[in-house]
């Protein structure tokens, strides 16, 4: 890499380890990869070993040690993208570009890579090209786009679609992404004026804020469901002159895209929620941890932060109150699902690998840079604003007694009206399917809560969405009868966990791989009933993992085994006697491969000897 470019980037950052991820993202964006030389320079700049720099670099899948091409195409290979025709789109890309996925074209111009859900499930198949979002791809469009890239046309000119609805048309966004808001509720409602809730907080004091939050019984909307009021109170009770408010915008659960819509349409609401949290716990700094996939919103969000500061809702002496200071900045991730886990998110924001921390201590005691830290989901913080504005009493009337308020759902898959629906907790699956225009007779399964949730069948459609029955962080994927549930959904999700595991805990690192291999064996028709038992038994050690990723990684298999045993049964081998899991052809294939490898090596040795 050109030294001037690198030193310019390094010059921007202080010699602080926490800047490592930002530096790597900058270098990746400027150069298309992070070279060995760049690693050495970065290591010297931050007083780290090269191995240490490289361990952060190789953790994130949008960062690379090898050139990924002038134009990098990341095609979503998650379940719904495949349902909507990603296979043909993928084939068209490979044909037009002239290389396979995972490779870069010979001239180094275009790189093709797969990526997990990019938060566009209601407009698949979708891809990121140098950070720009392309949705609803067809082989036809692929051919046009690749031709354009080959002719060095500016990326923006490759947009022939009109920009999406709402703020997707904002001059700083201009994306073809659609919000598809199908149902507004209290969080998404437009009846609100920024600053009202914050003023109320200042009038009534910090204790009142926490009492209201506890009274409203708001629980974390990211999926874990921890009571927000208690989290804030615990953080408030810790004596420290430096506290942090993190907004978790790392929406990585496949099938979830509601945070993307809230960030696009209601960023001011989110910032106000962060300021309220800051007021309640006495924090002075806020960080929005935004997933790399949403980098197209960067300039827009930075502009909103600036204008909120100008209006006196952020920055120094907020609303004229002396000493009420709260600064917000954005921290980008670089492609790692596990960073949605709050302690992994903090590690990542510190420039490290996104490996979850052991708890205790909890982030409210020892979080970012070992300071007390609150991590709240985008939707949680927005809900907090409305609770403060309209009161806990009003909020408690919504939803059910255990699960108060509303939930913004991301509905996708086989239905007429995929998009964003804000509903009160307590809706059952029947009503949601009807709402989204899905014909129940045509529905095979519903994946509630993404891969880490449950795959339910028709007999469970009277179950309700709430924290007691079917908990969800917002993902709701409808799978039609025409789909190959095991291959296109369950295997896809299991592969996803195997790919995204940080690898730190043994049961997750090895267990996800073992489960994937076993499921593949069954799908290929080489499974026996013993293999089904193995699936169930091998899922058990995962419960001992440190974080939610490992603990829920077997859920796609376990819930589908329970609710769709027939799909597994029909795949099993007919005669079970004397052939437990054994396939002659498969065994011969391995033998052939080994022989081939051996022969190759042998010729290699001979060559070396000469």
């Amino acid at each position, binding site marked *: 890499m050109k030294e001037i470019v690198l030193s310019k980037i390094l010059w921007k950052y202080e010699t602080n380890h926490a800047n490592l991820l930002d530096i790597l993202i900058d270098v990746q964006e400027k150069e298309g990869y992070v070279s060995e030389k760049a690693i050495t320079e970065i290591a010297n700049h931050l007083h780290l070993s090269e191995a240490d720099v490289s361990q952060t670099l190789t953790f994130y899948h949008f960062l690379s040690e090898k050139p990924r091409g002038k134009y990098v195409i990341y095609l979503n290979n998650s379940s719904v993208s495949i349902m909507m025709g990603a296979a043909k789109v993928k084939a068209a890309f490979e044909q037009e570009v002239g290389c396979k996925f995972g490779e870069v074209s010979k001239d180094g111009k275009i790189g093709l890579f797969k990526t997990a859900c990019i938060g566009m499930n209601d407009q698949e198949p979708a891809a990121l090209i140098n950070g720009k979002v392309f949705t609803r791809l067809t082989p036809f469009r692929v051919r046009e786009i690749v031709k354009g890239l080959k002719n060095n046309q500016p990326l923006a000119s490759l947009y022939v679609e009109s920009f999406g609805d709402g703020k997707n048309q904002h001059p700083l966004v201009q994306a073809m992404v659609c919000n598809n808001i199908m149902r507004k509720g209290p969080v998404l409602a437009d009846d609100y004026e920024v600053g009202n809730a914050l003023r109320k907080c200042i009038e009534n004091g910090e204790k009142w804020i926490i009492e209201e939050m506890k009274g409203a019984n708001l629980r974390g909307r990211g999926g874990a469901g921890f009571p927000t009021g208690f989290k804030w109170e615990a953080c408030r009770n810790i004596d420290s002159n430096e506290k942090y408010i993190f907004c978790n915008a790392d929406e990585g659960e496949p099938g979830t895209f509601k945070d993307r819509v809230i960030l696009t349409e209601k960023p001011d609401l989110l910032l106000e929620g962060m300021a309220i949290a800051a007021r309640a716990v006495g924090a002075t700094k806020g960080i929005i941890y935004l997933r790399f996939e949403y980098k197209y919103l960067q300039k827009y969000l930075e502009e909103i932060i600036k204008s909120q500061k100008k209006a006196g809702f952020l920055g120094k002496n907020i609303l004229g109150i002396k000493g009420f200071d709260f600064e917000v900045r954005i921290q980008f991730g670089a492609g790692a699902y596990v960073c949605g886990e709050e302690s992994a998110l903090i590690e990542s924001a510190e420039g490290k690998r996104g490996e979850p921390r052991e708890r*205790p201590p909890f982030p409210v005691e020892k979080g970012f840079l070992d300071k007390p830290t609150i991590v709240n989901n985008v939707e949680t913080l927005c809900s907090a604003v409305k609770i403060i504005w309209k009161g806990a009493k009003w909020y408690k009337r919504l939803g059910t007694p255990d699960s108060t308020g509303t939930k913004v759902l991301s509905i996708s898959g086989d239905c007429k009206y995929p998009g964003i629906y804000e509903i009160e907790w307590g809706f059952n699956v029947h009503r949601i399917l009807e709402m989204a225009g899905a014909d129940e007779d045509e529905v095979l399964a519903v994946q509630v809560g993404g891969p880490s949730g449950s795959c339910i069948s028709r007999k469970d459609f009277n179950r309700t969405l709430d924290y007691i029955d079917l908990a969800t962080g917002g993902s709701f994927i409808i799978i039609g009868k025409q789909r190959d549930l095991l291959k296109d959904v369950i295997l896809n999700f299991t592969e996803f966990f195997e790919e995204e595991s940080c690898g730190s805990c043994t049961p997750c*690192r090895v267990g996800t791989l073992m489960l994937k*291999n076993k499921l593949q064996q069954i799908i290929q028709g080489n499974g026996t009933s013993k293999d089904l038992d193995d699936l169930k038994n091998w899922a058990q050690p995962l419960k001992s*993992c440190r974080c939610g990723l490992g603990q829920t990684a077997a859920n796609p298999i376990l819930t589908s085994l329970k609710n769709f045993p027939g799909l597994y049964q029909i795949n099993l081998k007919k005669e079970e006697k004397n052939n437990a899991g054994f396939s002659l052809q498969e065994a011969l294939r391995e033998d052939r491969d080994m022989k081939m490898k051996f022969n190759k090596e042998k010729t290699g040795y001979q060559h070396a000897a000469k």
Partner: protein
Amino acid sequence: MKKRIQFKIDGKVCETTEGTLLLKAAEENGVYIPRLCHVEGLTPRGACRVCTVKLGRQFNTACTMPVTKGMEINNHSEELEDLRKSILEMMFAEGNHICPSCEKSGNCELQALARMYGITVPRYPFLFPDRDIEATHPKLLKDHNRCILCKRCIRLIKDEEGKRLFAFSKRGSRLSIKIDTHIAAKMSDELAVQAVNCCPVGALLPRKGAFQCPIGKRVYDKSHIDSL
């Protein structure tokens, strides 16, 4: 001074200083909890999960959990023993372990635990991964085949400037240990010995001076790991 508190392991009343990590507190009271990734003096990481115990319905790692007053720990049950055994079996299936010819045989903690649990063959299929042996460093030999990714070397070994010699590379099932070539080239004999000694298995070996202790006189040759 910190308070002395009582807690229970499988019904046995134990005593320790408040805040002591369970693994150590158990040892103080003569209770052995199996472990691999943890050694005294290192920041606990809870990576291998072998020391998993149960607190109520929750799984917890003993190496990272501070003891509080009145805690009732479950350390021995069919469920826990099978969990630990299955984790050890995963390690054998995940790598390429060559116990009979390994320099570490008899001094290896993984092998010792496997013997304690009576593992003859893992329940998981061997993955036979294609892994390298790194013999380019002047003082160390790194055999990735035998590495169980416990992170001991990452946590312990730093040069005089505090820079890490070892680090992880990639993630998930592609995870491996990377050695910093520059630091490794300059490392002192002392640090090399420290690195070799911290490895619980035979993944880090000295370039010189292997097989000095004869078979039969090694740590776990004649006694189980839990009796030491």
